[in-house]
């Protein structure tokens, strides 16, 4: 169906909520190994696009293909996660009453049946993988801490760590630096660049400074479709983009 170098392919996707078109004839292609930044004003449809990719929302029309042949509109959330798509929510969502370490352990790639969880013994491999991820997200020191005691920024990292544990092919990261200090934002840039070496990534963010630091191709969404696409400089000089942002 699609080019073997394409990890994600959306074409002519539309979805309406009670007559309101949240996504309108959206098309987007992501290459394998690519990191893409998505910008756009509030209500542009960025989160809804992720809902469609991850199976939470079914599109009214259009095609969504992942990793060659998988028609994502035919799967549900759990299936899509198992196909290899991980998602960080806009509002950081971790298992608050579990420790940092358990949050990662529950996300580790592996069988997802009830029986497997009843018989589970953590293997040495799992333990090593957990250590690696905790090091990557810089939370080794706090591994025994309950997740509810983490700062907002640390929760964002923990959630990214959970995605890494899942070992997906594609990561969808919704507003990772919202509510972060400048230093934390810098850390997150480093973290995502590191992640992008081995995964395809889509990052949604409002913070232009952060997007510039990422230094990747940018897609600007507006009213549910692509308004402009290219380098950040190209997009930010696009008169239609300027109008959308200034016109508000």
């Amino acid at each position, binding site marked *: 169906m699609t080019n073997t170098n394409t990890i994600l392919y959306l074409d002519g996707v539309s979805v309406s909520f009670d007559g309101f078109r949240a996504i309108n004839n959206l098309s987007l292609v992501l290459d394998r190994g690519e990191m893409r930044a998505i910008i756009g004003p509030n209500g542009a449809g960025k989160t809804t696009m992720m809902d469609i990719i991850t199976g939470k929302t079914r599109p009214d029309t259009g095609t969504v293909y992942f990793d060659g042949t998988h028609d994502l509109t035919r799967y549900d959330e759990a299936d899509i996660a198992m196909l290899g798509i991980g998602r960080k929510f806009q509002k950081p969502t971790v298992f*608050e*009453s579990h420790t940092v370490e358990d949050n990662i352990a529950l996300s580790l790639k592996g069988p997802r049946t*009830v029986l497997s*969880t009843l018989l589970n013994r953590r293997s040495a491999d799992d333990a090593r993988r957990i250590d690696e991820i905790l090091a990557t997200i810089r939370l080794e020191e706090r591994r025994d801490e309950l997740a509810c005691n983490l700062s907002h920024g640390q929760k964002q990292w923990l959630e990214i760590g959970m995605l890494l544990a899942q070992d997906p092919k594609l990561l969808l990261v919704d507003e990772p630096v919202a509510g972060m200090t400048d230093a934390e934002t810098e850390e997150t840039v480093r973290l995502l660049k590191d992640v992008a070496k081995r995964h395809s990534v889509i990052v949604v963010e409002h913070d232009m400074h952060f997007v510039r630091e990422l230094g990747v191709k940018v897609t600007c969404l507006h009213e549910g479709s692509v308004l402009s696409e290219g380098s950040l400089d190209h997009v930010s000089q696009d008169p239609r983009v300027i109008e959308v942002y200034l016109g508000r």
Partner: protein
Amino acid sequence: MSSSLFGGGLDRRILGLLAILTSAAVLVPVLNLAVPPTSSFHIPTYAVALLGKYLCYAMLALSLDLVWGYCGILSLGHGAFFALGGYAMGMYLMRQIGTRGVYGHPVLPDFMVFLNWKELPWYWYGFDQFWFAALMVMLVPGLLAFAFGWLAFRSRVTGVYLSIITQAMTYALLLAFFRNDMGFGGNNGLTDFKDILGFSLQAPTTRAALFSISALMLAIAVIVTAVLVSSKYGKLMIAVRDAESRTRFLGWRPENIKLFAFTVSAVMAGIAGALYVPQVGIINPSEFAPANSIEIVIWTAVGGRGTILGPVIGAVAVNWGKSWFTAAIPELWLFALGGLFIAVTLLLPKGIVGTWDAWRAARRARRSAGKGTSQVEPPVAEGTTARTTRHSIEPQPAE
């Protein structure tokens, strides 16, 4: 951590509870049967039956806590599983009556003779065998919970809607069991039992033995629950409770996790009901009353949901209060129960055990801060009980 028995599931407090239950299983019969009634240590037979009843309620509350406290499913119909287990046991006890009934019919229970039935309905077959009845005690509630949960969880019915349909389920069963033509004794239910496995139900020794068995079964239920909630499965239950959609997007299927918990819980409730019926001597449709299921929720909330000790303490304490109230000032009991629930919800949202845990954790944190440690250590949790109760159980919407 004092113990790593069963993968760390049994912390010091749970071991304490198990010790109390097993010693009660021995001591109560001794104090009832061997100590003369003149001694102040003597426990009268009526008290043995009362205590046995409390233990059955404790097991029922524990089963509710498994789904509500740990998995976030507020079932308002758990009384139905308890009653079904009770009916299965009642059917066995009915068939043991044999020719000793008022009509002296060798096969048919009195109420069927009274209704002019000529033969035993097919679903009464096998209940003359104890092993068959014991199997049904678990199978009937388990299958109902499985079928109900399969439909409800797959359709993603959650929250208050789920609570309402569990309530509707028990109400529907209440109406069904009221009907004479259902063949379960209608309004009067099943009663006038004579003996169980050949032992007279009136004999103090039988009553003492039933108490001991209830205590031991509750101990087993505590172990099963503790092992379940401390396993990886237990952590997933809590994850589903706190952030269901997060688990879904990680590839888990919350519906399966809930379904397993719901089914295990229903089986546990069924066993509690089966132990209850021979001790109170009757099972009738009022056990399906929606209000009964709501009472179970209150016991669990009072003791502390999401803990293992909580529902046991809550069930015993509230029912003890109920026994006292209904003897002293019966007309005020419902007000007292309602008031208690409101008070607990407002003042002790974590229940007795949860509040105690939070208080101890805070004190420990203060003390370690007082010692000048730069970083406040997370209070070391004793097993999962303490750990899970410290954080509030309010579900968190994702995104």
